[in-house]
């Protein structure tokens, strides 16, 4: 019999989750003996809480700061794979305002940020660049209109989502600055599970990670139409154009494949990068110093080149 497994994403079904849907659609999970149900997230959905309450087995962790927080709070979770090498968070600016570099963003009077990015990325920006200040902050409620109305502003975004909306609705090509490229080098779209689950079912975890990695290769390089159908089914608003745009950006910016992932396969993460990012965050005052973060990840299931042969 197949092992029942629930995986909670952190947003509505979209191409950023493509590999997981791929593995469902083409039977990879099944081949690995798993029956996977994907629980899509939403603006405020509480999938992370569900993981902690053992209502789901895997959760899609957005970035490492979440993991560090878990350590700080004594929550026994473990990151077992990092699908995105780069955090897709961007800062978006108007094209004609003389904003050419990431540093230039400090000149703008207003930056629309979600509360979480304000508490993390922006703190890091203040610590590492000249000129960023709290007065720039205005809340972002997932509506880019205030940004569009104010040319002297920037806003946060997911490189694969807001730029697309701004391009199609606003009618101009905005300037995009990936935080990752500016040095905010957290992993993203990590697969997170509870430590006790990992301890008791290392086999299931292994199979889930490996099947997901295979799914991702197939999604990026194989026939992904079945996966996209699943995505559109779960989220009827999703358009083919948006999916194409997202896949394009994922490739263009190397979200999934860059750094070590190029040599050791999708999902790879390294201790030194995680530690480096941790130190960076400590310096920025985002997380507490002296945490033992070694328990919050394991590289046991990744960096073994699995599925690289599927890449064409």
């Amino acid at each position, binding site marked *: 019999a197949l092992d029942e497994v629930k995986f909670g994403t952190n947003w*509505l*079904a979209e191409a950023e989750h493509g590999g997981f849907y791929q593995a469902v659609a083409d039977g990879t999970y099944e081949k690995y003996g798993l029956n996977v149900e994907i629980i*899509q*997230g*939403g*603006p*405020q*959905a*509480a999938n*992370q*809480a*569900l993981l*902690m*309450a053992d*209502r789901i087995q895997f959760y899609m962790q957005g970035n490492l700061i979440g993991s560090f927080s878990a350590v700080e709070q004594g929550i026994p979770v473990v990151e077992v794979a990092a699908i995105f090498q780069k955090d897709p968070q961007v800062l978006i600016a108007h094209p004609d305002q003389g904003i050419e570099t990431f540093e230039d963003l400090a000149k703008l009077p207003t930056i629309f940020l979600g509360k979480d990015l304000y508490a993390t990325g922006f703190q890091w920006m203040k610590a590492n660049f000249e000129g960023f200040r709290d007065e720039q902050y205005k809340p972002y*409620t*997932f*509506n*880019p*209109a205030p940004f*569009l*109305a104010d040319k002297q502003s920037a806003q946060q975004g997911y490189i694969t*989502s*807001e730029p697309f*909306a*701004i391009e*199609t*609705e*606003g009618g101009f090509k905005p300037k995009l600055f990936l935080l990752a490229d500016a040095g905010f080098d957290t992993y993203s779209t990590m697969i997170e599970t509870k430590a006790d689950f990992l301890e008791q079912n290392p086999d299931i975890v292994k199979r889930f990670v490996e099947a997901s990695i295979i799914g991702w290769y197939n999604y990026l390089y194989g026939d992904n139409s079945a996966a996209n159908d699943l995505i559109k*089914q*779960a*989220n*009827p*608003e999703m358009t083919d154009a948006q999916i194409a745009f997202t896949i394009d950006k994922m490739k263009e910016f190397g979200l999934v494949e860059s750094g070590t992932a190029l040599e050791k396969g999708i999902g790879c993460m390294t201790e030194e990068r995680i530690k480096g990012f941790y130190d960076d965050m400590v310096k920025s005052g985002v997380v507490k110093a002296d945490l033992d973060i070694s328990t919050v990840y394991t590289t046991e299931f990744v960096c073994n080149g699995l599925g690289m042969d599927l890449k064409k």
Partner: protein
Amino acid sequence: MSLAATEKKPENVTNADPAVALLDAKSAPGRTARAKRILIPLLMLALLLVAWSLYVWAFDVPHYILPSPMRIADALVSDWGILGPALLVTLKITFLALILALLGGVALAVLIAESKIAELALYPYAVILQVTPIVAIAPLILIYVPTTQAALLICAWIVAFFPVLSNTTQGLKSTDHNLLDLFKLYGANRWQTLIFLKLPNALPYFLAGLRIAGGLALIAAVVAEFAAGSAGAGSGLAFRLIESQFRLNIPRLFAALFLLSITGVLIFAATSFISHMLLRKWHESALKREV
């Protein structure tokens, strides 16, 4: 000066509600008044739409900031396939939440008005429920409640029940002391005093609470969906709102808001109508003054 009574216009006819006026043709004191009741809101609406359109046109406001009414109408029509089902989902939650809020609110109010101990023990927690932000406790509810649907309802209930509770309590406590004496004298038991005296007496207060709760239940359904709702296919208007937002589909956002508004106004009209019907025979607020 001669004031022939037959010629004199009725100057004192008050009617509790515009909604009622529209629904209860009999109570209209005359043709003109009835026409006024339909014309004025329509006129106001027309005025607003024209001003809005003019503003958008004159200042060339981009549609992704403030779409023109026409554009919203377009979106309403073309996106009906998406918005219609979403509205239905939201409506379902709204009505369930409202019913629960009414039942819960009145039951709690009765308990609190009847028993000092219950009041001292429970009222603070009712207040706490009222002031607890749903977003903050939604995860907890999701953990402990089996289905999303149930979680949604709990969230919506938490938002909507308090006005009913508070108003009904005030109404129950406002019972005429002389009538209370009368009931006591005739040996009415608690239950009888409640059913025959206190509840009818609390009706106007309860109905004022109902009007607040009606709109609040709608908002509650939306908020609950934000906090605990499902996304994707089975989702309600809240999800569509958020989604249109980050897709910058602002015309659709406004179309969804328009649906919410219409629903709200209709709920209000319905609660006002119910209120009028229940009070028209005896309560000052709904009585037509005989002049």
